[in-house]
């Protein structure tokens, strides 16, 4: 009787054991899978993951999407956004340009009780107001996450220090006008050098002394400094007027000079015109003289020809014509050379009004006649 009841119990406990075994295996598998799934991780676009194995740095994974590492706590993943361009602003509020009026305003720095002023001193004892922005991204994710305690504050102060140093070495006119881009370049360079100096000592005991690494490409550097850009650079509001006046004065200077140049041109033009006139006048004179002389010479030659053809007659004629004209005009007295005293014989002219100049002699040429009536010298 006892045997018969044993079998079913044995079968039941056997079955029960099988079920519990099965359950156990299932649960174990489930837990194993669950544990394994802690190794799953996903990288968004632009992210990289630092894989730490048992506390030590193992590798950096950059494949975007789902990946798997050894389950925790063997390996841990630390995702870092490496593609994003991060920015730190100095003197800008929320990306707006600061207005001139809050130049001297001091903002709070990063939550601390510190103050931030946009005023920076220049080499020649001037003050300028600057606001600028640092743009950077993560270069070495490992040193970025595990290298510094407060990387953002170190970066902030180092940037400020570099820029202030560059401005402090230049004169106010260079800063305001001529060398803005130079300032951006130089401060970026200094910042990179400073960061390189720090990176060399991250997690290293001694300063490595092999070859000096170009800070631009230093692999250990946590930051990839993209650029420092000056947003606003201007003289403080309090002295704006004086600076504007200098600009106005420059314009005045230019204006005075250009007006003078205009006047100068005018003066020279006038002189040229006068000179041209003088030249013209003298040329005209020369021409006139030559023509005149030619005319006269022609006339004489013609007369000479006539004379040569009939010398006596011509002489007589000319002489008589002249005498006629002359004697008609002048006061005359005919006096006998043998007379011892002068007795006017032809004296009727005495008190009478003089007649007008006599009519031209009949045989004179028009030119001669004209000359006679005008009494002009040749």
């Amino acid at each position: 009787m006892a045997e018969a009841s044993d079998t079913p119990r044995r079968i039941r406990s056997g079955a029960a054991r099988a079920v519990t075994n099965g359950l156990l295996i299932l649960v174990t598998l489930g837990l194993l899978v669950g544990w394994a799934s802690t190794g799953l991780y996903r990288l968004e676009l632009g992210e990289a993951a630092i894989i730490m194995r048992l506390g030590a740095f193992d590798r950096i994974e950059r494949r975007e999407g789902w990946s798997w590492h050894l389950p925790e706590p063997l390996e841990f993943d630390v995702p870092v956004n490496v593609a994003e361009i991060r920015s730190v602003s100095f003197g800008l509020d929320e990306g707006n340009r600061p207005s001139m009026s809050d130049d001297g305003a001091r903002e709070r720095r990063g939550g601390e009780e510190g103050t931030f002023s946009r005023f920076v001193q220049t080499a020649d004892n001037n003050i300028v107001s600057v606001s600028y922005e640092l743009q950077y991204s993560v270069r070495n994710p490992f040193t970025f996450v595990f290298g510094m305690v407060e990387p953002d504050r170190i970066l902030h102060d180092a940037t400020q220090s570099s820029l202030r140093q560059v401005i402090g070495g230049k004169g106010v006119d260079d800063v305001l006008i001529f060398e803005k881009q130079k300032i951006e370049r130089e401060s970026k360079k200094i910042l990179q050098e400073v960061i390189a100096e720090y990176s060399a000592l991250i997690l290293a005991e001694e300063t490595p002394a092999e070859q000096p690494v170009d800070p631009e490409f230093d692999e250990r550097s946590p930051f990839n400094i993209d650029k420092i850009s000056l947003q606003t650079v201007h003289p403080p509001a309090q002295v704006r007027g004086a600076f504007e006046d200098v600009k106005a004065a420059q314009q005045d200077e230019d204006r005075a000079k250009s007006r003078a140049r205009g006047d100068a041109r005018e003066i020279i033009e006038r002189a040229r015109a006068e000179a041209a006139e003088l030249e013209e006048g003298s040329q005209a004179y020369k021409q006139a003289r030559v023509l005149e002389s030619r005319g006269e010479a022609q006339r004489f030659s013609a007369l000479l020809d006539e004379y040569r053809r009939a010398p006596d007659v011509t002489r007589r004629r000319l002489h008589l014509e002249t005498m006629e004209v002359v004697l008609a005009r002048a006061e005359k007295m005919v006096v006998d050379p043998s007379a011892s005293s002068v007795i006017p014989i032809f004296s009727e002219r005495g008190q009478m009004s003089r007649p007008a100049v006599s009519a031209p002699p009949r045989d004179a040429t028009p030119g001669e006649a004209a000359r006679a009536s005008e009494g002009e010298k040749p």
Partner: protein
Amino acid sequence: MTRRVIYGIWLLLALSIASLWAGNYGLGPVIVTQEWQYNIVLRLGTPVRVIEEPGVSFRLPIVESVLMRDKRLQYLGVEPSEMIVGNETLLVDYFAVWKITDPLAFSRRYQNVNAAQRVIRARLQSRVSDKISSLPLDQILARADVLGDIAVDATEALGQTGVAVIDLRISRTDIPKQNEEATFNQMREQRLAIAREHRARGEREAREIRAKAEREARTLLAQASSQAEITRGEGDAEAAGIYAASYSADPEFFAFVRSLQAYRATIDEDTTLVLSPEHDFFDYFRSSGADR
């Protein structure tokens, strides 16, 4: 039997994982030292070993405890304070970057990082003010690393305590608010002088430009004038030449004709001529010449 084996494996696995896990947080029999940590193992309060490399190590529970110290670069910001530079007062703001180089020595001296910060700051303050007052202003403005040797000194002094000051740098210098106006006045003066210079220069150069033009004009005219004289002279000469050429064909006849012209021109109503009856003119007055 299998069940016990499974249980056993399971338990072992679970325990290992748990202790590894806990080890990441400084608990349990396993110490997982992270990349950025130093771990000091104390046995009953006495330091027995310092773990500087990341990885897994073991400790005896209860008797051994672990002290963790930060291996990373630390930032120490100092409040801006007024310092005398030359004959001016400036607000100087600087910062330091330091790290723990010897965690054991560090822990002996300082309770934690904050405590260390206070000590380091105190040690740096007076040295920095002294250094800054000894330097000329232009050096302080143009170079942020003038405090570099203080960092070196400080590292030496603090080396015993496991601290290395890596860098000490001026983040900025400001003129205290109450002295700003003085600087602004100076700036205004400077700008005024520059503006005046510009305007003065403008006037000066304008005058010069005009004067130069006047000179040029005068030269132009003088040249033209002299050239005109020469041209006239040429005219006169040419005319004279033409006259001479023509008149010298018969100089005597020329003298005759020309004299007649002269008589016509000069003898006028005011002239009194005293003539002799012998004069040629009267030839035919005396007689008709019919019998010649």
